[in-house]
């Protein structure tokens, strides 16, 4: 095992540990963890036995294992980007709802105060 292989394995272990730690969700969590472990295992195998990767690549009609790795990582990167954008959109929507609720509540409170001092104001009735 070369030094670089060692460093790569170390990186994979760190990433896999972080990913497993950060993945949340109830039903899909176990599946995600298994997939992450399998991916880490496959990565370590590929690092230790680069020739095996080339055999897999040949099976898919690609010349070298390194090329297969490149294609797979491009797909992986794109999937990650899409997932991130979707997650951000969901978060934005939730922030919007939260900020709106805060703003409307503040307005109700402020108008409740003014209508206490001015009972003829019949508009600011909170629900």
């Amino acid at each position: 095992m070369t030094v670089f292989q060692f460093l790569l394995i170390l990186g994979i272990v760190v990433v896999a540990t972080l990913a497993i730690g950060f993945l949340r969700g109830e039903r899909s969590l176990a599946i995600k963890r298994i997939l992450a472990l399998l991916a880490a295992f496959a990565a370590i195998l590929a690092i230790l036995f680069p020739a095996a990767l080339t055999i897999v690549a040949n099976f898919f009609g690609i010349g070298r294992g390194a090329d297969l790795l490149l294609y797979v990582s491009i797909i992986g990167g794109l999937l990650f980007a899409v997932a991130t954008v979707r997650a951000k959109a969901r978060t934005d929507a939730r922030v919007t709802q939260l900020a709106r609720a805060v703003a409307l509540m503040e307005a109700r409170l402020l108008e409740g105060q003014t209508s206490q001092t001015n009972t003829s104001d019949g508009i600011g009735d909170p629900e």
Partner: protein
Amino acid sequence: MTEASAAPTGHEARPVDSQQTNGDVWVVIPLYNEATVIASVISDLLPSFPNVVCIDDGSTDGGGEIARLAGSRIVSHPINLGQGAALQTGFEYAIERHAKYVITFDADGQHRVEDARAMVQRAREEDLAIVFGSRFLDDRTQPGFLKKLVLKTAVTVTNWTTKTRLTDAHNGLRVIREDALRRIHLKQDRMAHGTEIIVQLGRTGLPYAEEPVEVLYTEYSKAKGQSLLNSVNILIDLIIR
């Protein structure tokens, strides 16, 4: 416009449930950094519409406080969320206060109060759920050639993708009745809400009409208003939905 001297004095009693005084109408103004013009916009509106609410979308120029002093109600977004989100907040505010009609009105003074009055009256008389303002039904409004081209393209695409047939999709002046209001849930925070409103209103199948209005391209709104680049955003937002 001419009654600007009839300055409002804040939160005293306001007539409710009166068609004569438009007490059942709420004017919703999304407000973002328009401190220099908002006070005159509000004082023009108040003689005709006693209920005005500004949705201060995280202004950093003190515009919210100026609007409050001018006699408007204020709802303050704690952070900037975008104009569509401000409108949705205003709709929910108005529904909470039992509004029968909501007018959406721009903060930069490009709409005319007379037009808004005429639109509410038409909604009442013709039993319409939505009245859209359109600057292209007569030749009072003079947008530049490029602006006109972009706006006409936008409305053509909008008509393709919705069931409505309109002449001006991105006019900030609209009258929306309470039943239509309850079916709007604007999700797009940024500018394409002009389209989103129409898509959602089109789905309701409620009766609508377009009213000719004049858009005042003042020096202020020209300097500040949507650039052509923003129009590109509108077009792209239309395609990618």
